[in-house]
């Protein structure tokens, strides 16, 4: 050590020249950010998990007028004005227990809704539950809970509680759609261990399942028919195998259906994360599942025959998302995913769908059945396409700080049609955010996204946080 000190001294003489260049960096220190007094100051953390905001969103939509298969009414409104009061709150009951609430109150005006109208006000009760930790890291939860699974961004095959849970989405971005979705009434227990976790939940049937069509006059109805129309349970467990790998396994049961799933992620170098999400089980194709649900809920009369089918029998089918995320030095994060839904439409399913509906009026029972299938797929958050490519980019501090640019494109790999969206959000201050969002679909008249009535839309929004 003495020798080292000698050499430090020697080097010190050699480098004794004052590093004048370094002192220029001091000019970059904000003058108004002078060092705090030499004592610690308290900062409030009372907000905790809570978030409250008001949002106003005005949307304009243009529709296609040359659809091969016309969509029965109601069509998407040409304009839609929403004032939203959104809250996520927690109230502690004891040091190891709390009650959580999450919900949104909507004031809605639309071109075809009228005012005043009982459809002008409705409320989404997303979550209301109690949670207790009876012993360290053992949890019991009861109430309406939003349970989310999966590691992918664009399509989550293992997110079993996504079905019928999304209502009144203001965006088509699948990674954001989860933000205003309904939880499910359930009992849940979880144990978080040192290197893994296991949880089990049971969601009982409390009412008959609701039809697919969204009720614009739902008011303050909690819509349990969308989330608790059947008995369901889920067990999932994760285990840390190495610093890189913590796989998760899932087992899900609904009615007489069993599903199994897994989630895997790993980092590759400094900038890349790779992920795989798989779910499989015996199930109907999306067409047969939709028509069976339509009959169960009375939307499709019992005596009306199925106009289209994928065979009508259950067999083992898989859903897979495999993807990578990549972040650049310029603060852009790209996600590229391949999505596979074996239960989705094959090319021949599409051919039959268009052949059956082409040239028929929107009042035709056949056309109604064809569009019911698509509404069902949208409601259960399953891709209609069998194979899709999803690319999303998120650019933080685009041009100026606090301006975030987000865009995605979802391409049907079979027909090349696409769903696209570009969004810019500017956090003007810590409390105010302004945004604009433009979306659209492209593709031929006989394609997945090119046959949708909604062509383009633009949304302007302002948000005030409290």
């Amino acid at each position: 050590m003495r020798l080292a000190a000698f050499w430090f001294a020697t080097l010190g003489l050699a480098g004794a020249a004052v590093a004048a260049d370094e002192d220029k960096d001091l000019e970059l220190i904000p003058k108004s950010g002078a060092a705090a007094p030499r004592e610690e100051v308290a900062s409030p953390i009372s907000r905790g998990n809570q978030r409250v905001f008001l949002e106003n969103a005005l949307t304009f939509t243009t529709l296609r007028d040359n659809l091969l298969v016309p969509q029965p009414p109601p069509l998407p409104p040409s304009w839609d004005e929403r004032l939203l009061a959104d809250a996520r709150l927690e109230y502690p009951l004891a040091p190891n227990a709390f009650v959580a609430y999450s919900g949104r109150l909507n004031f809605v005006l639309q071109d075809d809704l009228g005012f005043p109208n009982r459809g002008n006000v409705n409320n989404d009760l997303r979550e209301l539950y109690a949670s207790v930790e009876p012993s360290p890291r053992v949890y019991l939860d009861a109430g309406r809970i939003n349970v989310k699974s999966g590691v992918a961004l664009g399509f989550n095959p293992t997110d079993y509680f996504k079905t019928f849970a999304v209502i009144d989405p203001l965006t088509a971005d699948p990674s954001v759609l989860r933000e205003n979705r309904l939880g499910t009434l359930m009992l849940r227990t979880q144990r978080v261990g040192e290197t893994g976790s296991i949880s089990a939940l049971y969601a009982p049937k409390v009412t008959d399942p609701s039809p697919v069509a969204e009720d614009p006059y739902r008011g303050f109805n909690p819509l349990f028919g969308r989330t608790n129309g059947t008995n369901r349970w889920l067990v999932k467990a994760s285990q840390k195998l190495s610093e890189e790998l913590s796989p998760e396994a899932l087992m899900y049961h609904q009615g007489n259906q069993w599903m199994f799933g897994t989630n895997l992620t790993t980092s590759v170098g400094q900038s890349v994360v790779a992920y795989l999400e798989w779910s499989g089980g015996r199930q109907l194709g999306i067409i047969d599942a939709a028509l069976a649900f339509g009959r169960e809920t009375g939307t499709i009369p019992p005596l009306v025959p199925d106009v289209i089918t994928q065979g009508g029998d259950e067999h083992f089918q898989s859903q897979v998302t495999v993807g990578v995320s990549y972040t650049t030095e310029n603060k852009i994060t790209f996600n590229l995913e391949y999505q596979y839904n074996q239960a989705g439409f094959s090319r021949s399913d599409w051919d039959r769908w268009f052949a059956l509906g082409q040239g028929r009026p929107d009042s035709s029972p056949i056309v109604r059945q064809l569009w019911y299938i698509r509404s069902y797929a949208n409601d259960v958050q399953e891709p209609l396409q069998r194979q899709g490519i999803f690319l999303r980019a998120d650019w933080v501090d685009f041009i100026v700080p606090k301006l975030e640019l987000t865009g995605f494109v979802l391409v049907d790999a079979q027909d090349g049609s696409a769903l696209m969206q570009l969004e810019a959000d500017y956090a003007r201050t810590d409390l105010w955010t302004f945004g604009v969002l433009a979306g659209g679909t492209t593709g031929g008249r006989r394609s997945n996204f090119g046959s949708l009535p909604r062509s383009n839309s633009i949304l302007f929004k302002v948000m005030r946080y409290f």
Partner: protein
Amino acid sequence: MFKTIFFSLLTMYATSALAQSAQEIVAAADKLRNAEQPSRSTLTLTEYVSGQERSHSAFVLFSKEDSAGNFRNLLQYVEPPRDAGKRVLLDGRSFWFFDPASQSSVRISAQQRLVGQAAIGDVLTVNLAVDYSAILLSTESIDDAARQKRTCWHLELRAATETAVYNRVEYWVEQGTFRPVKGKFYSDSGRLLKIIYYRNYIERLGAVRPAESVIIDAVDSTLATIAVFNESRFQEVPDAWFQRDYLPRLQIR
């Protein structure tokens, strides 16, 4: 001839001693910046654009050193209101971001933790001596953030592990006190990304430690962030907290 051999051996030995000691300097500075026991702090970040305060954020940070000397960090945002409740887990090479709005946890890369709401890699507890190998460049007299002259070791740190955030770091540590004064952080391509000044040394977590870091964006030098540690205290932090499935369960009352 003997002279040459003698000086060659002396130089080799001295170089070895220097390399060892440069690493020791960085380790000693690490111990000043970070407590070795598990702790909880509140960290406030104030961002400036052209010297004007632009935004403010705060989060509660839980830190714990693992057996290899790496810090595991778990944090939750409490400000600004739009980010309240968002959580980030930084554990070795495993980084997760949790958003309570969507109830979803997303794995992020080492690069992604430096952008957006996860842009906290610079100010979190990190042991540079673990992730970087250091050599001594020279002794220099530079001004600290308060424009006081400090005689410093000027060190160069090269990334030695995959968990190192930056490829290269220039680091100035005050002689005698081992207080870190300043750091310059470079990307893989050699681009200067950040300049950090450590200042406001106060009694915190059982020792005199820097309570503030001034982080200057070297790419856009109009941008700067001041990070301040508050409400620091030792607290038991179970290992079980440092995994994805614990993120939704974190309570910071």
